[in-house]
């Protein structure tokens, strides 16, 4: 009997209604541990190259890890992996909440969904049992309604639900899979994959808690985290949410504004985490935000999730749908030149009700705003919408239209890259995407290593796939754990910073395999360091994992992701940054007049491929590299 994991992977074929339970061996779990590392194993085994991401041939993997569901902060996360309908590359997204732990309690470490149901269905997974149930009555309904109906019909208010909203049904290419109506597998369009399979929801419930190899050691780590939190560098994330980042971004000229034309936003204080805390966080009127306005994930002491409510005015917001993260405040806010916090919270509510990624949605709208402002999109194109920067009411209206594929929203539901291709007229000049995925709210002009990671990341630009620039000098002891012992300035680029980008990418990749929260574990400012992550895994499983083994796991996952893209014919030619970042200098603040030097960037990219031991021309992993990581089999 293994400790920490169930040893069971659920396979569901929605076309045939076949249900199988696979029991992989210990070596499998030790090698992949969970998340998309495990998901990629099944994609290579079950899916040929070249499938249409929205066809029944796509395979959706939802993977927990060997430590998901144990009593320590930051472990209740799940990864969704499939071919992405947004990027046509590998899709990869993580979500927290309670459903990851509950899936383990229900008896499974992961779910693999193939095929397509004839009509809408949902999966009901409980204590090792699996049913495919009719979901016709749920189709078309928003997330909050679906959750309530399912809990009522199953007679259990404690079931946990992963579901798509109407946006997933409508195959919005950046549709999310939602849980609790406020947690999301946001990125890369995994909700559209679920929608294409007529799979409305996956519902889990169970009583089987993971067994622990060394309970005392785990509880010592848990208690240490609770005690260390108040003085740690994540204390602010707990109290003020991820939106605590707004001020540092602004002050360093890295707050994307007016579709990435500026790095500072005059209205930044209106969308800062402290303002949200003082105004719309539930309990703010009675000074009870800490108890009423903060939410959490299973067994987590940080409590970073926001719960907001707006009771009056044009943009009233229901607290059931949570509250905006920093990324959301930036994409619907500074990207669009909007400082109306209630309007941004309303757009966030729509995204959670209808199931959409707030980053791609807000950034797609800001792309349209720039195209409109520059006269490349006309009022005829938009169906009469005045897409001016700062038009908060229009932004909220357009968010709902995208989810419903209504009018001009239908075009934007394709994502900005496809919309630009269709509209033409030079609108591609305003795109802020890598691999067709809209760029998150951290600017490579202010954080140069992100210029490498945004480009090479296999599932498109992503801000949580490596450590950002400042940490190398601020956290030398933790950096040394992952082989980085030559601290560098946060400014500028050089070979050592490329090595920093790559090795912290492996660390984050390991965390995305073990499915831990990147605010709780990590190589820098996080509550627990990488050594403590290895100790956590060992206390749960009884293994003897080292930080070096975690780094190799992370490298293995990055290579699996890249190899998936290589199989799709996608390599270095798609490792790009938005052209605007090279051509147009930012205006205002500390990053005034800054743009990325293309020649230097290309030299640094060469270093990245060399350090990764990939083919310099194609950017793909070599067979020798894959074999060294124990995954040469994927080339067979």
């Amino acid at each position, binding site marked *: 009997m293994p400790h920490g994991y169930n040893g069971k992977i659920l396979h569901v074929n929605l076309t045939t209604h076949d249900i199988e339970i696979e029991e992989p061996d210990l070596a499998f779990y030790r090698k992949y541990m969970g998340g998309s590392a495990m998901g990629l194993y099944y994609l290579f085994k079950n899916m040929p190259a070249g499938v249409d991401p929205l066809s029944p041939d796509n395979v959706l993997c939802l993977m927990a890890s060997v430590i998901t569901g144990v009593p320590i902060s930051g472990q209740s996360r799940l990864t969704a992996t499939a071919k992405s309908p947004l990027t046509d590359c590998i899709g990869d997204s993580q979500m927290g909440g309670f459903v990851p732990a509950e899936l383990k309690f229900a008896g499974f470490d992961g779910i693999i969904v193939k095929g397509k149901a004839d009509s809408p269905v949902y999966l009901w997974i409980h204590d090792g049992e699996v049913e495919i149930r009719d979901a016709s009555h749920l189709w078309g309904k928003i997330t909050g309604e679906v959750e309530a109906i399912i809990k009522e019909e199953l007679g259990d208010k404690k079931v946990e639900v992963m579901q798509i909203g109407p946006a997933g049904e409508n195959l919005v290419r950046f549709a999310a899979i939602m849980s609790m109506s406020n947690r999301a597998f946001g990125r890369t369009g995994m909700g559209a994959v679920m929608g294409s399979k007529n799979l409305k929801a996956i519902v889990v419930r169970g009583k089987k808690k993971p067994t622990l190899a060394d309970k005392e050691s785990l509880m010592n780590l848990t208690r240490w985290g609770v005690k260390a939190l108040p*003085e740690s*560098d*994540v*204390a*602010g*994330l707990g*109290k*003020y949410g*991820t939106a*605590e*980042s707004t*001020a*540092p*971004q602004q*002050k*360093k000229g890295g707050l994307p504004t007016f579709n990435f034309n500026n790095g500072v936003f005059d209205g930044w204080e209106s969308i*800062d*985490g*402290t303002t949200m805390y*003082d105004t719309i966080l539930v309990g703010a009127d009675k000074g009870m935000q800490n108890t009423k306005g903060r939410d959490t994930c299973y067994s987590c002491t940080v409590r970073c999730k926001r719960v907001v409510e707006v009771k009056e005015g044009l943009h009233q917001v229901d607290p059931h749908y949570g509250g905006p993260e*920093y*990324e959301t405040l930036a994409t619907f806010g500074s990207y669009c030149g909007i400082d109306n916090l209630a309007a941004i919270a309303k757009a966030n509510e729509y995204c959670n009700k209808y199931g959409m990624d707030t980053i791609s949605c807000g950034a797609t709208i800001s792309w349209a705003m720039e195209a409109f402002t520059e006269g490349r999109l006309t009022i005829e194109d938009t169906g009469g919408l005045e897409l001016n920067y700062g038009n908060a009411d229009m932004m909220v209206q357009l968010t709902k239209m995208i989810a419903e594929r209504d009018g001009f929203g239908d075009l934007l539901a394709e994502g900005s890259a496809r919309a630009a291709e269709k509209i033409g007229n030079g609108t591609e000049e305003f795109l802020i995407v890598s691999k067709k995925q809209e760029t998150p709210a*951290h600017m490579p002009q202010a954080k140069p290593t992100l210029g490498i990671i945004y480009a090479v990341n296999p599932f498109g630009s992503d*801000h*949580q796939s490596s*450590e*950002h620039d*400042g*940490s190398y000098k*601020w956290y030398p002891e933790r950096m040394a754990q992952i082989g980085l012992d030559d601290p560098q300035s946060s400014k500028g680029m050089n070979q050592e910073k490329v090595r920093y980008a790559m090795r912290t990418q492996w660390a984050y990749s390991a965390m995305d395999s073990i499915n831990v929260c*990147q*605010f709780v574990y990590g190589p*820098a*400012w996080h509550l627990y360091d990488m050594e403590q992550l290895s100790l956590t895994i060992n206390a749960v499983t009884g293994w003897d994992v080292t930080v070096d083994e975690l780094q190799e796991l992370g490298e293995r996952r990055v290579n699996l992701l890249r190899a998936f893209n290589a199989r799709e014919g996608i390599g270095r030619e798609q490792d790009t940054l938005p052209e605007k970042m090279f051509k147009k200098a930012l205006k205002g*603040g*500390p990053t005034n007049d800054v743009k990325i030097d293309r020649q230097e960037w290309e030299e640094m990219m060469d270093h990245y491929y060399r350090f990764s031991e990939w083919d310099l021309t194609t950017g793909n992993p070599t067979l020798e590299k894959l074999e060294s990581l124990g995954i040469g089999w994927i080339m067979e």
Partner: protein
Amino acid sequence: MQIDVKLLGILRDQLPAVQKGKAKIELQDGVSVADLLTHLEISRRVEVAINEEIETDETHILVDGDQVHIFTAIGGG
């Protein structure tokens, strides 16, 4: 001399809540950034902007009327 200080994010909790992180602080001439951080009892890892420009040198000497913004040094997400 008088320094205009603004503490951002969780740092504002160093001051009474009603001040929302803002304070005018009287200091002797010749005081450095490090001295100011000590005065404010800030022990966290922070970054400092003086008159909207990032200052990485904690020995930098402040002058009367400086606007000092202090914020946490984190990656965000």
